[in-house]
């Protein structure tokens, strides 16, 4: 036989809530009413945070940000699925995931104001600082997961990256090495359809991003990333699998409704029709319809949640503004090394002298 099939693969697609908010009852994850409401609350918090942050950027109060509007379901669901012991490894568009994980919103604003204080990782907290270099963090997530395997840690690491990052060599190296070392890693690709202006179909000829797992010998699965229940279910199962030493790539199909960053103008590369079409599939609206139909949510609760979100955000913005005055420029020397080498001490002293002269 000159030619026979050497291997065969398939990629599954999962959806629990359809676009009209109808759920497949067999697949709905087992969550309490409070947990269901938390998913909703966190999506609303994130949406409002990003809209306010864009406005603050437009007014010059904060620097460039990368909003996650439209991607709340995948981020909130994934961060909710994580235990405290699990690691979260973000890229740079994870406002919703950070907020869900309990990071104070004023810290995100500080980072956007150019203050490293915003990226400080509190002792014992298993969340990495943001990685601006595209795709580099996939390896950090793989390394964390490998460390968990080496130390028999009963936890996993979840790393966020985008469809654009899946073109980077680091992403492939991460899938491959995670597989080789039985890393406890879940690679979560938020396929939001665009890497700045380049649509997925120009990013790769692969039919799915999930199938990129196959080359690394790990599992790949696709989920509707605008379906918060589906993503929660798939990521929860993926984390369980990863904790057993079987890394997995989850591709969540979603859409970046806003700009790549506040320095970007999407009208140059996409149509209002396309944007309107995806607004129809909005993850929050869809989930709200479901919760209302289940009797978990009514107008009153929505109003309460919106009010809480507003109060929290006002306080965070106030806190962020106060923080701006707290920047001590000489601190840029403090965290380069554990112990400051003499040459750097000299530069710091020189810097301080110049600061005094200029005052």
């Amino acid at each position, binding site marked *: 036989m000159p030619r026979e099939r050497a291997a065969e693969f398939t990629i599954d697609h999962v959806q629990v809530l359809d676009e009209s908010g109808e759920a497949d009852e067999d697949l709905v994850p087992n969550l309490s009413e409070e947990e269901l409401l938390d998913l909703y609350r966190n999506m609303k918090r994130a949406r409002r945070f990003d809209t306010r942050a864009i406005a603050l950027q437009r007014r010059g109060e904060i620097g460039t940000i990368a909003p996650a509007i439209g991607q709340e379901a995948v981020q909130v669901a994934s961060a909710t699925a994580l235990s405290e012991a699990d*690691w979260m*490894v973000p890229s740079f568009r994870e406002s919703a995931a950070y907020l869900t994980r309990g990071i104070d919103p004023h810290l995100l604003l500080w980072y956007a104001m150019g203050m*490293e*204080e915003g*990226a*400080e*990782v*509190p*002792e014992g907290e298993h969340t*990495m*600082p943001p*990685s601006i*270099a595209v795709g*580099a963090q*996939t*390896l*950090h*997530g*793989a*390394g*964390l*997961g*490998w*460390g*968990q395997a*080496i*130390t028999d*840690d009963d936890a996993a*690491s979840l790393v966020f990256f985008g469809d654009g990052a899946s073109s980077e*060599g*680091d992403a492939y*190296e*991460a899938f*491959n*090495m995670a597989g*080789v*070392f039985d890393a406890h890693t879940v690679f979560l690709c938020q396929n939001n359809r665009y890497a700045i202006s380049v649509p997925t179909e120009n990013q790769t000829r692969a039919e799915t991003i999930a199938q990129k797992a196959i080359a690394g010998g790990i599992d790949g699965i696709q989920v509707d990333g605008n379906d918060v229940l589906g993503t929660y279910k798939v990521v929860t199962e993926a984390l369980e699998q990863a904790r057993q030493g079987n890394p997995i790539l989850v591709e969540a199909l979603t859409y970046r409704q806003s700009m790549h960053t506040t320095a970007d103008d999407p009208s140059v590369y996409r149509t209002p029709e396309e944007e309107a079409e995806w607004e129809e599939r909005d993850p929050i609206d869809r989930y709200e319809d479901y919760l209302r139909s289940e009797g978990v949510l009514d107008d009153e609760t929505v109003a309460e949640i919106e009010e809480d979100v507003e109060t929290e955000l006002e306080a965070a913005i106030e806190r962020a503004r106060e923080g701006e005055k707290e920047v001590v420029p000489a601190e*840029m020397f*403090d*965290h*380069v*090394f*554990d112990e400051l*080498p*003499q*040459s750097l001490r000299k530069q710091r002293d020189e810097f301080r002298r110049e600061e005094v002269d200029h005052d």
Partner: protein
Amino acid sequence: MTEQLNMLEAIRSTLRAEMERDDGVIVYGQDVGRNGGVFRATQGLIDDYPGQIYDAPVAESGIVGMGVGLAAHGLTPVPEIQFSGFMHQAFAQIQQHAARLRSRSRGTMNCPMTIRAPSGGGIRALEHHSESFEAGYAHTPGLQIAYPSSPADAKGLLAASIRNPDPVIFLEPTRLYRAVSGEVPEEEHLVPFGEANVVEEGEDITVVAWGAMRRETQRAANNADADVELIDPRTIVPLDEETILDSVRKTGRCVVVHEAPKTAGMAAEITARINDEALMYLEAPVERVTGYDVPFPLYAREEDYLPDPERIRSGIERAVEY
């Protein structure tokens, strides 16, 4: 108590001792496991420490990037890159992540990774197997760089690197791996970073050299018509500037020797620091004896490229006769 070891043996025994001391020390890289490393630096270690030593796929960025994650998990990664000429594939992970994890997290996380790699030419190897890129790493805030030139220093600096809470680029002069043997302390031996070794004392001229160039410089000094004070900085970052400056203040003359290209090399940096702090003591311009600003040549020309005792001696004499 000391024992007679070459540099590879010193490195191997240090890796063994450090893995024994701390089971969080994880040694990994291409061919370091069963094969014991292409230079045999890790030979036999996998039998005794199977949970701490791993063969890694050929993926330099992956090897270093995984180390950032291991470090975040609280382990101490000691990856080997097979040749430092291939560390450029990992440079983004080194420069953007390993070196910045501490500052990015405001000092709440660190990256105690020691990246070992054979460095420098003189072994008639293939293209990309002979580079000496210490200046590139020195230009990267957040990294420390060790470049031993003797078996004892290899042991002392490697142990200090592995216990260093910051990322260390540990460059091993390939041509000295087996070429020199020396007395190495059998007990724990730590060479602190930032403390230069005054290899030879002298009155006429200060010569600064590290890695394989230390041996070439010693040979040159023996034949030069000058009383040479030879200083081996041992760590490029942090640099023991004081020892160099004190020596220059005494001798009034200086030659810096390295095999990396001349432009923007460490010799330029050392010269600038002498200008900053000891200009008025100088009786001659600081001489640089270095590789040329050309890609490291294939081996038919590597002897012409590399500073040898003859070129170093000329440099010394130029400075002395100025």
